[in-house]
C-alpha cells in the first residue's frame, strides 16, 4: 500500500504541490484525473441490477454503472439523466419522456426508447420492489421514435410523484441483454451489470471486492477516477480499523458503529457528516399490534408514547446523528413536511400512568399492569439500544416488556407474516415521496407476508381515503395538503409512532472532492468525484 501510494505520487505532477503548502490549496481547485476510490461494502447483495432491486446496497455499486431517467440535483429537484425533458397531460394519464441522444451502452449498442419500454414493463412493473406498487396502473409504454417514451396509465399518475420516485425506481437496463434470454431474475448480467454510466463493470469476487473502471465514452465526458473498488467488509469494527489504516476511503450509510463514527469525526483525515444523505432519511419506529386488545385502545398507545423520554435517549445514545421526529414524513422532505404542529407525545410519566388507569389497566401482582413482547429489527445498533430503552421506560409505568431478538429473516417472518408480536421496532426509510415509501405502512388491506407494509392490523377508512386520493392527485398543492392531513390523522390516532428522525452518516476521506453534493450522493454516479493528493 505504502509502496504503491508513493509510486503514484512520484509519477504525478502533484508532487510539487505537496512540497510547498500554499500551492497545494491552489492545485486542488482543478480536479485531479486518476486514482482508485475504495468503498466499504457492508452487505453483499444477491444481484446488482437496480431495475430489479431497489436498495441502497445495490445503488452504492450499480448506481455508478447504470443510470436512471431522472436524478435529484443539489437542491433536491429532479434533473434529467437519461431523460432530457418530461411532460404530463392534464389528466395525469399520459407522461412523455424525451430521451438523451447519442448515449451508448458499455457494450457499444445505442440506448433507445425500446430499453425504457422493456425495463418499465418487464422489470419495474413485474419485479422491482416498490416499483410494482408504483407502476401498478401502468398499462403501456409507447415508443413512437427511438428517443421518446410515452408512459400510459390507467389512473392518474402525479408527475411530481413519478419524478421523485424515478431517481430510485427509474434505472434503465439494456433490453438486448435481457429480452429472450430466459428468466430475467437469473440472467448473469445481473451480477455483471452493463449500463450507460461513467464506470463500467470489471470484476466481482464474492466475499472480497467488486471493481469498476472509468468508461471513457461516457456521454458527459470521462469521470475523474480511474477505478472504484468496493471491498466487502461485514464486521463494523474491522471496517473502522481499515478506514484508519488507510485501506478504505468511504464508508456509506452509517456503516460504522456510532462510537467509531464519533471518534473518526474528530480526526482531520476524515469527514463525518450526514450531508449527501438527505434523500435517505429514516425514522425509528414503534409499531403496535392492533390485534392485541389492550393495544387497540388508543389510551394505552398514548400512555406508551408518553412514558418514553425520547430527548434523553437521543442525547445519551445517538448523539449528533439524530433528532426528535414528528411523524411519518421527516423534516428533510421540503416538498411534504407539514411542520411539527401535528399531535405529539412529549415525555410525561404522570400522564402515562393516568392514561393506563383510565384504560382500566390497574397494577397487578408486583406492580405489573400489562406484559408485552417487543421485537426489534436486527439492523443498526440504534434499534437495539432503542428497544432496551423502551423496555426500561415502560417498566417504570408498570408495563413489563420482554425483548425478543431475531435475525433478519426471523424478524420479518414473525412480524410481517405471522404477526407474532405486540410491539415491534425498526426503521422506516423515507424515499422522497410518501406514496413511494410511507403510505403503504398505513393503508389497510395489505396481504400478510409483505415486509414494511401495514401488518399491524390498523384499518382506518378516513386514512385509507386520504392515501388513495393523494396517490392519484395531479395538483401538487392539493397533494401536499392531503399529505398534511395524512400526518395529522396518523399522529392523532397514533397508529405507528415515529419519534426519532435520523439521516445516514457518511464517513469519507478528507481527500475526496465533489462528494456529498446531492441528497442521494451515496447512490449517485460519482461522475465528478475526485481524490486530491
Amino acid at each position, binding site marked *: 500500500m505504502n509502496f504503491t501510494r508513493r509510486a503514484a505520487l512520484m509519477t504525478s505532477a502533484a508532487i510539487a504541490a505537496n512540497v510547498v503548502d500554499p500551492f497545494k490549496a491552489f492545485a486542488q481547485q482543478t480536479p485531479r484525473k486518476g486514482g482508485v476510490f475504495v468503498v466499504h461494502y457492508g452487505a453483499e447483495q444477491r444481484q446488482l441490477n437496480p431495475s430489479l432491486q431497489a*436498495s*441502497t446496497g445495490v445503488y452504492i455499486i450499480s448506481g455508478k454503472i447504470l443510470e436512471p431517467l431522472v436524478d435529484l440535483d443539489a437542491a433536491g429537484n429532479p434533473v434529467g439523466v437519461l431523460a432530457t425533458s418530461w411532460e404530463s397531460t392534464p389528466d395525469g394519464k399520459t407522461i412523455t419522456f424525451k430521451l438523451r441522444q447519442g448515449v451508448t451502452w458499455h457494450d457499444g449498442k445505442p440506448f433507445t426508447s425500446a430499453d425504457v419500454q422493456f425495463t418499465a414493463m418487464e422489470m419495474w412493473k413485474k419485479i422491482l420492489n416498490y416499483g410494482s406498487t408504483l407502476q401498478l396502473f401502468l398499462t403501456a409504454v409507447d415508443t413512437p421514435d427511438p428517443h421518446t417514451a410515452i408512459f400510459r396509465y390507467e389512473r392518474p399518475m402525479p408527475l411530481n410523484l413519478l419524478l421523485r420516485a424515478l431517481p430510485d425506481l427509474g434505472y434503465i437496463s439494456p433490453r438486448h441483454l435481457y429480452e429472450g434470454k430466459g428468466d430475467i431474475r437469473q440472467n448473469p448480467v445481473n451480477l455483471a451489470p452493463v449500463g450507460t454510466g461513467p464506470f463500467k463493470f470489471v470484476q466481482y469476487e464474492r466475499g472480497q471486492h467488486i471493481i469498476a473502471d472509468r468508461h471513457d465514452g461516457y456521454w458527459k465526458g470521462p469521470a475523474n477516477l480511474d*477505478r472504484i*473498488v468496493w471491498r466487502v467488509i461485514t464486521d463494523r469494527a*474491522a471496517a473502522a480499523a481499515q478506514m484508519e489504516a488507510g485501506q478504505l476511503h468511504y464508508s456509506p450509510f452509517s456503516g460504522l458503529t456510532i462510537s467509531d463514527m464519533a471518534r473518526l469525526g474528530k480526526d482531520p483525515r476524515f469527514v463525518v457528516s450526514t450531508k449527501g444523505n438527505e434523500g435517505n432519511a429514516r425514522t425509528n419506529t414503534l409499531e403496535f399490534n392492533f390485534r392485541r386488545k389492550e393495544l387497540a385502545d388508543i389510551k394505552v398507545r398514548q400512555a406508551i408514547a408518553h412514558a418514553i423520554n425520547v430527548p434523553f435517549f437521543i442525547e445519551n445514545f445517538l448523539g449528533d446523528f439524530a433528532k426528535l421526529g414528528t411523524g411519518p414524513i421527516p423534516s428533510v422532505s421540503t416538498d411534504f413536511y407539514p411542520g411539527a404542529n401535528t399531535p405529539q407525545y412529549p415525555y410525561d410519566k404522570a400522564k402515562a400512568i393516568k392514561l393506563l388507569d383510565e384504560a382500566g389497566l390497574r397494577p397487578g401482582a408486583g406492580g405489573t399492569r400489562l406484559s408485552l413482547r417487543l421485537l426489534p429489527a436486527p439492523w443498526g445498533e440504534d434499534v437495539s439500544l432503542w428497544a432496551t430503552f423502551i423496555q426500561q421506560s415502560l417498566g417504570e409505568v408498570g408495563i413489563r416488556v420482554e425483548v425478543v431478538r431475531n435475525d433478519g*429473516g*426471523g424478524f420479518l417472518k414473525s412480524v410481517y407474516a405471522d404477526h407474532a408480536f405486540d410491539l415491534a421496532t425498526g426503521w422506516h426509510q423515507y424515499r422522497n415521496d410518501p406514496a413511494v415509501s410511507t403510505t403503504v405502512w398505513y393503508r389497510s388491506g395489505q396481504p400478510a407476508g409483505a415486509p414494511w407494509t401495514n401488518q399491524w392490523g390498523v384499518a382506518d377508512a378516513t386514512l385509507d381515503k386520504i392515501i388513495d386520493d393523494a396517490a392519484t392527485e395531479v395538483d401538487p398543492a392539493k397533494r401536499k395538503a392531503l399529505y398534511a392531513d395524512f400526518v395529522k390523522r396518523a399522529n392523532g390516532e397514533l397508529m405507528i409512532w415515529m419519534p426519532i428522525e435520523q439521516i445516514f452518516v457518511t464517513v469519507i476521506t478528507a481527500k475526496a472532492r465533489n462528494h456529498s453534493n446531492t441528497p442521494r450522493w451515496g447512490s449517485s454516479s460519482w461522475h465528478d468525484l475526485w481524490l486530491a493528493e
Partner: protein
Amino acid sequence: MRIFSLAGRRLAASIPTLFLILIGVFLLLQFAPGDTVDAMMAQMGGGDAKTAEDLRRFYGLDLSVSAQLGSYLWRLVRFDLGFSAIYGKPVATVIAERLPATILLMTASLSFAFFFGLILGVVAARGVNKWPDTLISTVGLIFYATPSFWFGLMAIVVFSIYLQWLPAGGLSDITSTATGIWAVLDTARHLVLPTLTLGLIFLAIYLRIMRASMLEVLNLDFVRTARSKGLDETRIITRHVLRNALLPMVTLIGLQAGTMLGGSVVVESVFSLPGLGRLAYESVVQRDLNTLLGIIFVSALLVITVNFIVDLIYARLDPRITSGA
C-alpha cells in the same frame, strides 16, 4: 496398498455420519424463523407479497420439509450440491471460490503453530524448570487465554493503524497491480496477522503437548541407553526423542483441523477474508440452506482428508501402527 484400504474403510465409515449430520442441520434450521425469501426481502428493503410467493415457488420452498430434504439428499447422492438462492449460482461454485482462502489460512496457521510449538516445546523441555521453561510456559498460557477476536483487533490497532506495517484486512491489495512474485508476497503480507491470530492459541497447545511428551520420552530407558552409548545430545534429541515425542503432536493436528474451521469464522470476519467460515455464518443469517449444507459437506471432507494424511504420517513415524492395523 494397505494404507489405501484403511483409507477406504475410514471413508465408508464416515459416510453415514456425514448424512446424519446433514439431516440434523437441515432439520435444525427448520426451527429458525423465516426462510431464504424472508432474508432476501430484508436485503431488498421490501417488496410485495406476490413477489415473495413467486420466489418461494422458484426456490422450491413451498414444498413440505420432507420433500425438500428428500430432494436434497437425492441430489447429494449424485454429487450435486444444489443452487444457492442468495448467491445466484451453484453451491459448488460458491464454495470453490471461498475454499482457497480458508485452506491458505488453515495451512499457514497450522504450520506456524506446529513449527514454533515444536521448537518452543523442545527448548522448554530441555531447560525444564529453568528460566527458558518458565518464560515459554507463561507466554504460552497468555496466548492460550487470549480470545482470538481480541488479539486480532489489538494486532490491527498496533501493526496496521499505529505502525502501518501490515494491512488491516483483505487477501490482497487490489489498488496495486502487482503480478507474479510480488502478488504472492502481497498476499503473504496480508496473511501475517490473520495467521498469528488464528495460530497463537494452537501454538500454545502444541507447545505444552510437545514439552510434556519430550519430558516423558527423555525419561525412557532407550534414551538412557543411547546416552550411555556416548551419543551426543543433539543426535539423541533429533534421532531418538523427537521422533517418538512427535506422535501426540500429529494426533492433535487431526483433531484440530475441525476446530480451526470453527475458529476461522471469527478471524475471517475480523480481517474480512473471503473464506468458508464467514460464508457459513452468512448462509445461516440468510437462511441459505443449500450453501450451508454444502459447506458442512465440504468441511467434513476436509477433516476426513486431514485425518487421512495424519494416518500416513503416523505410519512413517511409527511403523508399528500400520502393521497392527
